[in-house]
């Protein structure tokens, strides 16, 4: 609760400020160093002006004593200034690197605690984008923006103050190009209408979509020899984007070129000399006092232009910061408060009036009630889209039910600490995921401290030990690098993983089985050995493997329509019987695979 309050209080600040909060002191120091340093770097210009004045006014001979001092002081300032700037930038970079690793780990930590269902609605690319790309974009801000800003301000401020001190009238006129630049620049920016900006952004997202469609579709398109279609879409998107880009930038080109031309060093130098000559002609200023202007004023152009560009970095970084902050604010899967979690007694599982809708009203499971007695085998069957996998995911707490509750050993899943939960419920799901690591690391994923003997024992039980030993690097084989494993072999690794964890309840997605005859037999014998004595929930896609289950739950459109043993269900001659016949397992001819259910 207290933590929530802190967050809501901080929420009023911008995402960038919230993210950079921990390094704000370091950044402030870096900016001050860079600002002061850049100002010092410019001291030699004043030194040159002073030398010229000394030589011309006092005569070179008289001034020759002072000149070396001026040179020495100027160069000392130059060296000190550069040292300060470098230190400031180094500091900012180190702060960024420090912050980056913290943010990345905070993201990983947060995402490890959000409901698992979150990952099915967010592309893995989005996670990569946040953890890698967005935080790298922040680097522009943390490591570069603030110090560069400081340097620009330092350079501009000291130049302006110096020139004003020498002659404020000439200073105002010599610096005239800069406000003019902003005027033109601002007017040009204003000409970007909301509509054109939208057009441009729409064009950009259209091209992203067309690219995905085009590239992913190439294999299909090539297979069917109808290359034209997807290609057309891509061409259209490219052309459309080009036009939107032209509409967007076209009217800006000339005004921006004009604005840039006004503050190029050449122009500033010419303006300075023109007004300077005029002032000298009018007798308002000594000729030697024009020199500081010629030396210093053109140098303001660089920082001025840079300030304009810096805006881009901020805009990009702000977008990135928002995305990162959004992820850091993703609602967590409700966890029992520390100390209040309840350890389940026993392994009985009950679904009580469970309802869950994950994507609109079409994808719903509701009114689910059943009990898994310890040590029994329960199978869930039904046509695809019936909600079988949703039941498995709810039990594994990928997400929580909207209504009703699921209990393990009499305790609501929501009150069980996730480590306790996953020690009791293991699973082997349809999509086997091996980690890019050695085979032994993969098997020991849940128990990294397991001994090699334990790992090998699990692999033996999973019928994969011999295959692993046949690989040149054995258990040290890195998946996907040293060897390609077949689907069936990957499944057996996943089974070994579950065996090593040794949970009393096992959820099995049985579509795993469809690889080839050889591995199927191996997978199945591995599973049946491991499953005996445990509570088993099987999501069955084929019916012939589950005929001996203690209980079969038949699902149809999110509801339980039949429950019973194989023989009873066949005798009922309902949905299950139709599925059985459709699968062609019995002697009957296939009819139709879909049950007709009147809601």
């Amino acid at each position, binding site marked *: 609760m207290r933590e929530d309050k802190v967050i809501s209080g901080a929420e009023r600040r911008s995402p960038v400020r919230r993210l950079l909060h921990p390094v704000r002191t370091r950044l402030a120091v870096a900016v001050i160093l860079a600002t002061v340093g850049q100002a010092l770097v410019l001291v030699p210009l004043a030194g*040159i002006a002073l030398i010229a004045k000394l030589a*011309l006014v006092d005569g070179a001979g008289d*001034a*020759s004593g002072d000149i*070396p001092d001026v040179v020495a002081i100027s160069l000392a300032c130059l060296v000190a200034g*550069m040292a300060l700037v*470098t230190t400031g930038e180094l500091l900012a970079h180190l702060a960024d690197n420090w912050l*980056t690793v913290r943010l990345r780990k905070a993201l990983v930590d947060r*995402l490890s605690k959000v409901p*698992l269902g979150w990952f099915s609605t*967010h592309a*893995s690319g989005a*996670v*990569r984008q946040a953890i*890698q790309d967005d935080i*790298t974009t922040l680097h522009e801000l943390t490591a570069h923006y603030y110090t560069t800003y400081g340097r620009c301000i330092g350079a501009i401020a000291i130049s302006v103050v110096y020139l004003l001190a020498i002659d404020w009238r000439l200073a105002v006129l010599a610096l005239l190009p800069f406000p003019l630049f902003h005027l033109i620049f601002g007017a040009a920016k204003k000409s970007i209408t909301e509509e054109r900006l939208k057009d441009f952004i729409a064009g950009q997202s259209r091209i*992203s979509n067309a*690219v*995905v469609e085009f*590239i*992913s*579709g*190439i*294999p299909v398109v090539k*297979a*069917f020899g*109808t290359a034209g*279609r997807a290609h057309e879409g891509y061409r259209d998107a490219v052309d459309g984007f080009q036009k939107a880009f*032209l509409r967007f930038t076209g009217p800006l080109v000339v005004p921006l070129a004009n604005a840039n031309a006004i503050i190029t*060093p*050449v122009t500033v130098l*010419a303006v300075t000399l023109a007004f300077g000559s005029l002032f000298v002609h009018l007798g308002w200023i000594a000729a030697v006092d024009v*020199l500081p202007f010629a*030396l210093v004023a*053109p*140098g303001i152009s*660089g920082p001025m232009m840079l300030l304009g560009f810096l805006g881009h970095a901020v805009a990009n970084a702000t977008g990135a910061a928002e995305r990162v902050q959004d992820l850091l604010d993703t609602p967590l899967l409700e966890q029992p408060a520390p100390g209040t979690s309840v350890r389940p007694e026993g392994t009985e599982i009950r679904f009580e009036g469970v309802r869950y809708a994950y994507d609109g009203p079409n994808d719903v499971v509701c009114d689910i009630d059943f009990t898994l007695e310890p040590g029994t085998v329960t*199978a869930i069957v039904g*046509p*695809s889209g019936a909600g079988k996998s949703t039941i498995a995911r709810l039990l594994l707490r990928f997400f929580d039910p909207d209504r009703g509750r699921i209990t393990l050993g009499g305790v609501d899943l929501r009150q069980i600490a996730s*480590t306790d939960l*996953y020690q009791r419920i293991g*699973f082997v*799901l349809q999509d086997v*995921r091996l*980690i890019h690591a050695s085979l032994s690391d993969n098997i020991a994923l849940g128990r*990294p401290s397991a001994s090699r003997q334990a790992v090998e024992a699990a692999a033996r039980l999973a019928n994969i030990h011999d295959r692993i030993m046949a690989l040149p690097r054995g258990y040290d084989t890195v998946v996907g690098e040293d060897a390609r494993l077949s689907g069936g072999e990957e499944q057996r690794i996943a089974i070994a*993983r579950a065996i090593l964890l040794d949970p009393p309840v096992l959820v099995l997605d049985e579509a795993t089985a469809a690889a*080839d*005859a*050889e591995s199927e*037999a191996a997978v199945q014998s591995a599973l049946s050995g491991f499953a005996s004595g445990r509570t088993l929930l099987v999501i069955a*896609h084929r*019916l*012939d*493997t589950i005929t*001996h*289950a*203690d209980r079969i739950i038949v699902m149809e459109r999110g509801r339980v329509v039949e429950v019973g043993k194989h023989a009873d269900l066949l005798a009922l001659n309902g949905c299950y019987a139709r599925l059985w016949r459709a699968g*062609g397992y019995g002697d009957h001819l296939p009819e139709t695979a879909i049950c007709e259910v009147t809601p």
Partner: protein
Amino acid sequence: MIRALLLLLSDDAPVFRRYVLMAVSYGLLSGVTIAAAVPVLGGLLRGDGEGAGRWLVILLMGVVACWLLRRRVEIAGIGVGLAILGGARLRIGDHVARLPVGWFTAENTARLGHIVTHGMMEIAQLPAHVVTPLVSGAITPIVMVSALFALETSMGLIALVTLPLMVGVFVLSAWLGRAADTAYQLSAAETSQRAVEFAQAQSVLRAFNGEGGGVRFLEGAIDSQHRSGRRLIWLSTLSVVLNVWILQAAFAALVIAASSRLSNDVSVPEIVAVVAAMLLAVCFVDPLLDVAAFGAAVRGARNQLAEVDRVLTEDPLSEPVNPERPRDASVELRDVTFGYRRGEPAVVSGASFRVEPGSMLALIGASGSGKTTLMRLIARFFDADAGKVMIGGVDIRDISSRDLSAQISQIFQDSWLFQGSIADNIRIGRPDATDDDVRAAAQLAGVDEIADRLPDGFDTIVGEGGARLSGGERQRVAIARGLIKDSPILLVDEATAALDAENQEAIARTLSRLRGKRTVLVIAHQLSTVRMADAIVVMENGRVAEQGSPRELEARDGLYRHFLQQRQAAKGWRIGA
């Protein structure tokens, strides 16, 4: 880097060359114009108002000329950007469309997507934000060197010596930066991969996170990126220090040289010349400092261009010069050998067999025995390393890609659906198919059941990649697509196409319907399918271990017999028995 850019621009390269030429002339012109400021200042300091005025007029004219030229440079720069956003994007599209299907792995596809969207955007902005300031910043100082020579030979010499020294230091520091940068990019890529894995395997990672084991891989990658980031910071700081300090050292040398000229009694014109030379020294160093600051931007662009280069230099599948047409619907392999990567053992070696027109061949064998690869070779996802694949008596490399794809229809695991309706996606198989044809194929593939359930039936929009359908449903649409194509040869991967009972049934219906009418090659999984075949090829470790009719092979005590026994064992297996 320039090579990759020119390769990318191809026909538009002259646009780029013209633009660079203009940027160079702009640099020269602004250098000369700045030099014109020297006599103005000199005139003022000497009290020669008239001379100053004359030069001032020239200076102002130069400024106007610079302004006009600058505008043209920027417009030309936009032109280059447009050429990249338009022409180059299309060129990449045309190029990848000719690459072998096998190239489109998940990794390559993702990388390509990034290049075409973000990469191109970044490269397109190169001219405006990087090339113009870089070129003019590098050219102007050269003019300053000649002007310095005219005023003060010693200072001219210092400036002249600085230039090659500076180039040397730039090269050295770029080299320093690059080594660290490459290491950093590698560790960043590792983190990216781990982040994707973290998201995709989240369920497994979380369930097996007992001792923090689930996140340790990603956290390890983040830590190592952190470490290589630190190294990169120190090295790039060093390279910035080198770049900037060599220039400031040159500046200091110029100031010292100038002030030493003032130590004795010198005439006013000489003092004026020295002062003017110091102004030139400032104008010499300033743009070079800007150039030094662009190092990072150039490095970023080089990475993008290297990626582009890698895609554009990928070899497309060769098209025959004198294409031949297949004579019938037979498929024949002669001594075919193929490996995915050099140095790895071949996945298929010395495979030979022949499928007569209109007959059905079942491919069986353990996973990893090369069945899928064989199918891919027949569909020309890749070309064989040795031996040849022939269709209708013609090497497939001598058949035009259009004719080849007209011959073959595939039902593989790859079931990408395009944005559009279910009917649209089925029609990809045969664009001129009638509604009745679509319905017939849909019925055979079991798509009609899906359409019946959806509000808009066959007109239901499936979303990108078919995201609004389940995996099994997408697969069935892909089966219908393969069926409607009506080509003489059908390739089916039963193991991966049959996700669930409904799909299994659709495949079985398809096979029994088309048997005897088409040449069918099927990676068989079901015993019933194997029994349907006219001939069987048993693969083992990439080789054809046995081939013959089902009856012949059953009689032999070989792999096929073993397969049948295994099947029976799998059939006999019961959970909870």
